[in-house]
Each structure stands twice: as C-alpha cells, then as structure tokens.
C-alpha cells in the first residue's frame, strides 16, 4: 500500500495554486493534507541529511490546527481569494506572530513581534503562514565577504540545483530555495537591490520586485526605507499574480505607500488576455553577444509577436554613493523598526548596539565578520547631503531606463537575473524574473522584464506569455 505522501505527490508537486484549489474542491486534497505534505517534505529534505538545503528557519507551531480551521471555513463557503488555505513561507525579516523574526541574527532570536502589514493582508485573505525562510543575515547588509544565504540562526542555505556548487542568490535565499524544492505553495521575499530577482533566478522560480510603495514595509526589518520592498516568489507566474494580489494595499504607516486601484486585481483572466504581439522590448547588445540562453529567450519572444530593439549599456550613467544611501537609511530605519515593530524584550536600539552584541561571541555569531555594519556607523552626512544623494540616484536610475524607453518607444527592457537590479532599485521601478533555462553546469538563469512605475500587470502578462511559450522550469531532480 502506498503511503499518504506518495498518494498526494501527483496532486501537489509542481502544481499551481488554481490547480491545488481545484483538487481541494474535488475532495482529492484538503488544506490540512496540503500543509502536512509540505511539513513532511521539509522534514525529509531540509536539514541534517545529505540533501539538506537549510532553507527553512522556523515553523508555525499552530499551522496544522489553522489548516483544519480552513477546511471547515471552506465547507462554509468562506473562501473568497485563491490564496485561501495556501501554506506560505515568509522571509525571516517579515514579522509574524507565532514565531520569532530574526533576520537570521542571534541578536534578534527573541524578537516575537506582531504581524507585519502584509501578513495581516495574507491572513485576511485566508492564507496559512507555514513558517519562515532562511536568508542572508540582515538581508545581506551585514558581513562583507560572505556567501549568499548564510545566517547564524539558519545556517548556510544551499541551492537544490547544485549544493555547495551553485550560488543560492540572496538575500531571499530560503524563499527561493524552499519554493523551488516544493516546501510551500509560495513564499514572500524582500528586495533592496536584487534580493528577490537574484535568488528567484538562481533557483528557477518566478520573482517579482514591485514598484516601491505598492507593497507595505511596515513590520519588516529594514535596510533602506527608500529602496526596500517585499514581493512574491513562486513556481509560476499565475501564483505570483495571486500572491501579489493578496499582499498589495495602502498602508498609512508606510511613508511610501501607494493607493493603487487595480480593478479586478492581478490574478484573473487578464494575464492571458493580452499577448506579446506588437510589444516592444529593449534587449542588451552585450548580453546578446555573450549569453546563448538570453538569445533563445529573445527568439521566443519574437515568435510570439514581440518586437525587439537592440540597446547598448549606457555606461555614462553611474550610481554614485549607492552604498552610502543604504548606510544612511539603515542608521535611521533600524532604530525605528526596533522601537516600533520589535518585541519589547529586545533591548537593542541601534546598529551600534547590534555590533556590540555580536562582539560577545564573534566566532559563533558572526563567523564572516560584520564589515558592512561597521560601515553603516562610520558613515555621516548632513540632511542636505543625504537628500542630494537620494535625488541623484533616483534621477540616474530613471534616466537609465527612460532614455531607452522614450527613444525607442519601448514597453519594457529585458535583462538577465538581477543584472540591472541596482538601476531598477533606485528608479523604484518593478521587475519580474522568469526561468529561461540552465547553464552547462546546471545553474538556472532567469529572463528579467523591467517596466516603468506601476507596470506590474503588464510585467505579469509578458512573463506569463513567455512562460507558457517556453515552460523552462524543471523541478530540482533530487527533491521529487
């Protein structure tokens, strides 16, 4: 007789959220069974074995009971959104009750904080919080020379397409890895500059970095209130649209929050309705010359009716003081998070406090040092200087894309992985990455669409059309 796990495999592995909901409606699956399925897989693969990925840092101890409740509510027809009952992993810089929020840092291991705004949004739509995903500690703004996906609390996240060989990307490393390995229905990541796009593309999943302000940052451990955003990481574009639809929304306590009306939301049939015919995209000459997977992806877009304009990197546009922007923002933003959103038991008040805490046991707490944290406290600027840094960066970022877009009447720009994430970050523009194949060593790569402010719906449509035409994602073989 087959085990419960083996019986459920065909109904769950690699299935998109609408299909999972269909199986639940038909009775082949329940929210409780689905939740247990993911828990079982995490236990089987994630830690302390020769396939371990170290992608999950904490689990919600009440999730099975909450899943049973969802099954009851489903029978009472309380499901209103496709995210209902779906087990979601959150990057461990997103506050969620039932578990500590640590950013992977020992200094925050007792930070039992209230739900972040986006977690409240998820719960309002009925989603289940399965647990927390490992990350590059402090969202990779901590140690200088250190690997992606390492945190003191969670250990070293590893890539399921090549453990210890292929970089996981980061800082949302656990979110990318766990989603790819089918440890959750979908996950939340966060990005300052490339931290969603990089791990999503490195792990062959879809990652969307939204326009700054579309998704609230309240209750998320910050790097930079100028550039930070949360965003969805999923196995496919449909799920990405569903998750984005569940989390976006105006938050009055977030200074950059945008009130956006999106009609029927992101996820409905609109994804399919608009094709690629007549869409004009800029493709980088330098990438076309060097990357065969990019060339194939461009050919696929052409076949679907897209028009491609070859553009050249504008090397005259620089991003001066980019690192200083992060330094100066974090000096202010971390103390705000600690006083407003952290557990009262957390005695730390500033970056300096964290540095001092880490010195108590440096070998265990910070094996790769804390060079970037030291850089934060060493940096000084007047308010005027800081405002100027931000203005120049934003102007240059927008200039970088807008020049191409205006001159060539483009709808969007095509990149690879997180290669242009820095420019998109300072321009505050959205971007989505979709699997576009694998290098000879098996490392996944993503085709990245970058659009103008609030072009998320178009990005999802383009990405969906490309995904359906190519179906490039292959689940990692050792984790089936």
């Amino acid at each position, binding site marked *: 007789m087959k085990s419960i796990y083996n019986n459920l495999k065909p109904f769950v592995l690699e299935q998109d959220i609408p299909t999972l909901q269909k199986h639940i409606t038909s009775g082949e699956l329940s929210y409780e069974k689905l939740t247990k399925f993911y828990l079982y897989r995490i236990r089987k693969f994630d830690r302390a074995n020769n396939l371990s990925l170290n992608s999950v840092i904490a689990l919600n101890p009440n999730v099975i009971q909450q899943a049973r409740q969802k099954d009851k509510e489903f029978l009472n027809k309380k499901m209103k959104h496709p995210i209902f009952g779906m087990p979601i992993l959150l990057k461990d810089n997103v506050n969620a009750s039932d578990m500590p929020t640590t950013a992977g840092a020992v200094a925050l291991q007792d930070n039992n904080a209230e739900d972040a705004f986006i977690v409240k949004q998820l719960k309002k739509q009925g989603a289940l919080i399965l647990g927390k995903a490992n990350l590059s500690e402090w969202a990779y703004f901590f140690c200088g020379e250190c690997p992606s996906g390492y945190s003191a609390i969670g250990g070293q996240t590893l890539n399921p397409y090549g453990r210890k060989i292929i970089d996981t990307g980061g800082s949302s490393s656990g979110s990318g890895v766990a989603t790819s390995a089918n440890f959750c229905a979908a996950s939340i990541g966060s990005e300052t500059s*490339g931290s969603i796009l990089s791990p999503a593309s490195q792990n062959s999943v879809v990652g969307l970095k939204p326009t700054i302000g579309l998704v609230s940052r309240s209750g998320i451990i910050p790097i930079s209130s100028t550039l930070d955003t949360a965003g969805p990481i999923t196995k496919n574009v449909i799920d990405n649209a569903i998750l984005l639809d569940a989390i976006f929304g105006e938050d009055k306590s977030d200074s950059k929050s945008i009130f956006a009306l999106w009609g029927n939301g992101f996820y409905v049939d609109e994804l399919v309705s608009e094709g690629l015919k007549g869409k004009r995209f800029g493709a980088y000459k330098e990438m076309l010359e060097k990357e065969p997977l990019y060339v194939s992806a461009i050919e696929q877009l052409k076949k679907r009716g897209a028009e491609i304009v070859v553009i050249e990197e504008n090397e005259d546009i620089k991003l001066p003081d980019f*690192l200083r922007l992060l330094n100066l923002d974090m000096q202010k933003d971390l103390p705000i998070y600690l006083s407003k959103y952290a557990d009262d038991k957390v005695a730390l008040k500033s970056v300096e406090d964290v540095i001092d805490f880490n010195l108590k046991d440096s070998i265990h707490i910070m094996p790769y040092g804390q060079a970037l944290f030291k850089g934060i406290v060493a940096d000084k600027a007047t308010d005027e200087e800081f405002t100027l840094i931000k203005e120049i960066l934003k102007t240059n970022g927008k200039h970088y894309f807008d020049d191409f877009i205006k001159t060539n009447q483009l709808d969007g720009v095509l990149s690879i992985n997180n290669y242009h994430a820095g420019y998109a970050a300072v321009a505050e523009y959205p971007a989505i990455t979709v699997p576009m194949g694998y290098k000879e060593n098996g490392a996944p790569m993503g085709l990245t669409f970058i659009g103008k402010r609030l072009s998320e719906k178009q990005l999802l449509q383009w990405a969906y059309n490309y995904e359906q035409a190519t179906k490039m994602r292959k689940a990692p073989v050792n984790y089936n």
Partner: protein
Amino acid sequence: MKYFYYLLIIVFVFSCKKETQKTTTSDIEDKAVEVDSSNTDISAISTKDFTEFKVLDSKYINVDNFWKPFNKDLEKYIQ
C-alpha cells in the same frame, strides 16, 4: 643542561599554541572601516559566487525541538 633544553621546548610549544588561538579570533574581527563613497558595486548585496563555507549547519536550531510540535501529526506520513 638536558632539563634546560626540555624546558625550552615546552615553553616554545606553549607559546606557539597561544599564538594560533589569537589568529583565529582576530580573523573574525574586521579591520577599521572607511566609507567608500565611490563604491558602485550594486550587486554586492544580492549575489556572490562563493563556494568556501565556514559554517554549514545552524548552531542555533535543534532539529528535535524544531519538529516536536508536529511529530504526532506526521506519524502516518511514512514513505
């Protein structure tokens, strides 16, 4: 004289050992940081091809405790 040489060797061995420990700790300490305003390495906080890991497994997660709340519920999930 023979005992003097033994003593010298012992002193030498201990002093070497102490030196090694010192190096290990100082590796972790970062050197003085200067703010580099010309740094435009914007990929620095998302991707680094890094395959030499100092630590793999978490020293802070106890796998048995991690699974305690779920053991009973997952009993039937034998493969």
